């Protein structure tokens, strides 16, 4: 069996599962945010449920429009707060402790390897980087799991991606996943598990792995997953709130497809509007002037991302008439960036540094685009209107490319800025 099949089988109480089989599985963590949880809570109440199945496993993070951006958002966050208080949830994160959910849960050891996690947020697939089965669902699925502690799934077929070769300079986890999505398309992994393997992945740090698993949904994937190894163990140690279980795929596991990728010739990638699959190598971008840069989100708001951005922005200035907004994804990342002097680098360069929030990533607040404006963002979606006006444009890239673009005022390679 594949790692995905093994985790699902274990949580369904079965010895084996086959792709296509519909199983009901025990859920280790069920997550909601300020956009999706209010609907789930309404459904929870509508059927007369009184208690959540386990107060330590239902997690609520108001991160999208928080700190509350307007009255309506304040009302939504209030719904979460009151429910958390009523149910006495262990994991509710108030503004001041709150971070972008998919950066926060692994960091806080709330999700661990071997888990089944559902979240009413499509980027719940992020935790696959730890070797968990983790996937996004809607609010009704969340409501059902809050009541029963279970969710139903069709066991997905898996696609195995094997990354080989030497990573060229300035090529990061973000470039690998953008390149992969460019290769297979936004529905290239529809309904399937994306298993990321190979020597390149084994050498990749945890932050890059989280970036890759995060964007599995952008290829239509049900989950992205990476077998746990020494890097995973080192990351999990000292954080895990529950004992992890380490699964790997069997040597004779069956895959719907195996895709080999030689990373040696990959260049930094940029996804043009309006699909994450619309990728180009940085060398083929041409002259694209920009108005805004956003460095943050559940894709690239972690400490390694901020280090990379700071490496490019050190002793540089953000170009005139360009806004560069840096958003550490959690309070811990924020604090670490402060300790390392990264915040100073950003401030010296003329960046705005924000408290953790999803903010501009989904066009919520903290950096909305006007008509005709262009942004380079380290986020994960460049759909029409994603960051503001329907006639604005979002280009997706790594933190290094985003930082270089901020300096140049156009989409630029870090090679142009750092000698």
């Amino acid at each position: 069996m594949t790692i995905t099949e093994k985790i699902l089988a274990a949580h369904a109480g079965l010895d084996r599962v086959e792709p296509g089989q519909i199983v009901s599985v025990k859920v280790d963590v069920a997550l909601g945010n300020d956009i999706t949880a209010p609907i789930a809570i309404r459904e929870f109440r509508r059927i007369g449920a009184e208690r959540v199945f386990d107060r330590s496993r239902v997690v609520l993070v108001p991160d999208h429009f928080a700190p509350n951006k307007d009255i309506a958002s304040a009302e939504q966050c209030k719904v979460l707060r009151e429910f958390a208080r009523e149910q006495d949830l262990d994991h509710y994160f108030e503004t001041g402790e709150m971070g972008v959910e998919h950066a926060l849960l692994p960091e806080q050891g709330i999700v661990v390897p071997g888990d089944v996690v559902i979240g009413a947020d499509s980027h719940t697939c992020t935790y696959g980087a730890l070797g968990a089965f983790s996937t996004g669902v809607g609010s009704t699925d969340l409501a059902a799991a809050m009541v029963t502690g279970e969710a139903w799934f069709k066991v997905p077929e898996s696609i195995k991606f094997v990354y080989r070769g030497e990573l060229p300079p300035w090529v990061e986890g973000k470039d690998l996943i953008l390149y992969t999505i460019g290769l297979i398309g936004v529905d290239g992994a529809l309904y399937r598990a994306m298993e990321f393997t190979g020597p390149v992945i084994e050498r990749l740090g945890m932050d890059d792995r989280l970036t890759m698993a995060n964007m599995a949904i952008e290829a239509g994937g049900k989950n992205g997953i990476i077998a746990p190894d020494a890097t995973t163990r080192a990351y999990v140690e000292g954080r895990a709130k529950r004992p992890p279980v380490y699964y790997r795929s069997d040597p004779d596991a069956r895959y719907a497809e195996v895709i080999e990728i030689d990373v040696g010739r990959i260049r930094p990638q940029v996804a043009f509007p309006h699909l994450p699959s619309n990728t180009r190598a940085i060398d083929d971008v041409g002259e694209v002037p920009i108005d805004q840069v956003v460095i943050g989100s559940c894709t690239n708001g972690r400490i390694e991302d901020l280090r990379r951005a700071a490496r490019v922005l050190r002793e540089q200035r953000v170009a005139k008439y360009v806004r560069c907004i840096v958003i550490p994804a959690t309070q811990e990342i924020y604090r670490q960036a402060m300790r390392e002097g990264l915040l100073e680098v950003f401030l010296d360069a003329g960046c705005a540094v924000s408290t953790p929030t999803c903010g501009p990533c989904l066009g919520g607040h903290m950096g909305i685009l006007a008509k005709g404006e262009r942004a380079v963002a380290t986020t994960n979606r460049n759909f029409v209107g994603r960051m503001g006006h329907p006639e604005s444009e979002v280009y997706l890239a790594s933190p290094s490319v985003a930082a270089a673009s901020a300096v140049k005022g156009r989409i630029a390679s870090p090679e142009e800025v750092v000698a």
Partner: protein
Amino acid sequence: MKFRGRVWKFGPDIDTDRIIPARYLNTSDPAELAKHCMEDADPEFVAKMRPGDIILADKNFGCGSSREHAPIAIKAAGVSCVIARSFARIFYRNAFNMGLPIFECPEAFDGIEEGDEVEVDAGTGRIRNLTRGTEFRAAPIPPFMQELIADGGLMAHIAKRAGKG
């Protein structure tokens, strides 16, 4: 159950941000969401459509976020059902969980034009183009999902199991 209405056609990869832009997600009120249904795909959609009309889309309809606001907006706007070459998985799940009828049919997209009058039989998956006198078949709905629909959606299904419905 049968649905009958005029067809509105949309291209491939219609994401949830086009179905209901995030700028309207500070509410989950169906009537509010309905006003902005499909706004960033076709700003005139809500003004043009009539209750019962049908959305017909190319591949990967509903890709992107997990927001249930998307099927809620479509349902509340009065769209009777959605037919697509394929659906993104979270949208597919959400639609069943909350009772928006959807039909996966690879052929219908090429055989139906915008404005055609179409009738869909939910039981058999038969799609009839009344304007052109042609017929298509949607993929059958898996038994487990039929059970969900029969119970009136996922929450009703659970309430029934818990003896609360």
